[in-house]
C-alpha cells in the first residue's frame, strides 16, 4: 500500500489535456461530437467526484443500513436502465430486474464478505460495494441480452411455438428451446471475458488493486474471485429473467402474446 501515488488536483488538470486533444480531433475532422465530449468530460468529473464523496462517507460509517441503501439505489438504476434498453418496453421489467438483481446480489455478497474475504464486519463497505457493483453491472447486461433475445426468438420462431401450443403443449414446453437459447446468449459475454481475461486486457479490479500497491499475484486472486462471482451472477440472472419474462409473454390460457413481442 505504501507505493500508492496520490494525484493532486493540479495533476488531474494536466490530464484534462488528453480531453482537449479529443475535442481538437473532433473539431478538425468535423465529427460534430466536440460538444458531447465537453459535456461528457464535465459529467465524468462531477459524477465520479460525487461518487467519491458519497462512498467516502459510506466507507467511513461502516453501517449495514447505509450499505444496503447504496445497493438498493444501484439496483434501482440498473433496473430502470434495463427497462429503457428493452426492445419493447414494459414497465414490469423494472420490478423484475429489481427483484432478480437484489436476489443475486444477496446470494453473492454474503458469502463474499463472510467466507471468501472474511471481512470484519462482513459487510465492510469498501469491499462489498465494489464487488456488489460489479455483480449488478454484469448481471444487468446479461439479463438485458437474455430478455431481448427471448422476445426476438419467440417472434422469429412463432410458427414453431404455436404449432407446439396447438398440440397441447404448455408455454414452457412450447418455448423451451428459445428459453435455453436466450439464457445462453446472455452468458456469452461473461464466458468470453473468462476466456481472455489477463490475455487481452488487464481487468478493472486487477488494475485497481495493483495501482493500490498490492503484489500482482494477490491482485490475480481478487480477479479470479471476481470472475467466478460474475459467472454465477450472469447465470442466475439470465435464467431468472428469461424464465419470468417467458411467463409474461404468454397469457394464462397458454396463448403467445404477439403484441408484446414488438
Amino acid at each position: 500500500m505504501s507505493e500508492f501515488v496520490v494525484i493532486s488536483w493540479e495533476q488531474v488538470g494536466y490530464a484534462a489535456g488528453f480531453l482537449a486533444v479529443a475535442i481538437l480531433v473532433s473539431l478538425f475532422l468535423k465529427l460534430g461530437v466536440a460538444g458531447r465530449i465537453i459535456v461528457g468530460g464535465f459529467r465524468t468529473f462531477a459524477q465520479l467526484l460525487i461518487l467519491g464523496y458519497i462512498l467516502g462517507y459510506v466507507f467511513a460509517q461502516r453501517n449495514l443500513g447505509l450499505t444496503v441503501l447504496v445497493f438498493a439505489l444501484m439496483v434501482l438504476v440498473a433496473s430502470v436502465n434495463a427497462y429503457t434498453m428493452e426492445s419493447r418496453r414494459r414497465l414490469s421489467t423494472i420490478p423484475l430486474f429489481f427483484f432478480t438483481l437484489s436476489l443475486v446480489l444477496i446470494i453473492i455478497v454474503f458469502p463474499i464478505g463472510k467466507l471468501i474475504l472474511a471481512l470484519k464486519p462482513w459487510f465492510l463497505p469498501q469491499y462489498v460495494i465494489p464487488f456488489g457493483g460489479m455483480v449488478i453491472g454484469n448481471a444487468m447486461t446479461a439479463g438485458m441480452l437474455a430478455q431481448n433475445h427471448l422476445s426476438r426468438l419467440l417472434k422469429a420462431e412463432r410458427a414453431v411455438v404455436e404449432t407446439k401450443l396447438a398440440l397441447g403443449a404448455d408455454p414452457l414446453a412450447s418455448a423451451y428451446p428459445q428459453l435455453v437459447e436466450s439464457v445462453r446468449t446472455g452468458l456469452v459475454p461473461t464466458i468470453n471475458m473468462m476466456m481472455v481475461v489477463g490475455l487481452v486486457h488487464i481487468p478493472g479490479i486487477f488494475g485497481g488493486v495493483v495501482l493500490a500497491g498490492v503484489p500482482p499475484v494477490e491482485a490475480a486472486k481478487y480477479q479470479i474471485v471476481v470472475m467466478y462471482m460474475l459467472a454465477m451472477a450472469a447465470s442466475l440472472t439470465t435464467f431468472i429473467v428469461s424464465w419470468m419474462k417467458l411467463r409474461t409473454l404468454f397469457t394464462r390460457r397458454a396463448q403467445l402474446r404477439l403484441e408484446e413481442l414488438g
Partner: protein
Amino acid sequence: MSEPVLAVESLEVQLPSRGTQRTTPAPILRNISFRLGDCEVLGLVGASGSGKSTLLRALARLIEPRSGRVFLEGRDWNESTPQEYRRKVCLLSQVPVALPGSVEDNLRFVFRLHRDLPRVDAEQLLRDVNLSPQLLGQAAESMSEGEKQRLALARALVLNPRVLLLDEPTSALDDANAQQVLELLMKVCARRGLSAILATHVAEHLRVAHRTLTLSNGTVTEHE
C-alpha cells in the same frame, strides 16, 4: 341434428392491442355462431384477409375471443384447460411446420407432452397419411411441403382429436399435391370419425364439405 361436436355462440374476436394503446380496436370477427356436427366437414370460405385464419386460431384458442362461448361435445371450453381442449380441437396451419429433429422426433414430441396417450405404431401412422415408414429417421425439416403437411396431420392424429381445424392446408402445395392432401384429409376424417372445418379460397375444394360458411364483413353466413 344430434348434439354438435362443436357449438360456437356469438364469438367476437379482435386483434390484440399493445399495452400502450388507449383505444380498443374494432372487432375483426363478430357474432360468429354455428354448429359442427359429428363427422361433418364444414367449408369456410371468404376473401383473402376476411378472417378465416383468425377464426380458426380463435377456435384453437391460440387467440382469446373478446366474447362468446364455444362448447366441445356439450362442454364449455372454459371448463377445460387450454391443453385439454387443444388435444381435442387440433389446428393444422397454412404453412406446415416441421419441428426440429427427425420425423420420429416429431411424433415422439406429442407423446412426451401427453404421457397418457395410447401407444401407436409410428410406421402404420405414416402409412395412414401416405408417407413411407422409411422416412421415420429423416430430418423433418428437409421434407417437401406436401410431406410436411402429411407429417403435421400424422402428429395431430397422435392426439386422437375430435375436430381438425384445417387452415388452407393445400395453399403451399402444387395442384397435384393439393388434390392428394385434400383427399387424404377427407379419407382420414371419414375413417376416424373426425369432424373438420376446412378454410379455403378454392371453390372447387368445397365439394368435400357437407356445408359451407361464408365469412365476409367480419361475420358468417351459412349455406347447405
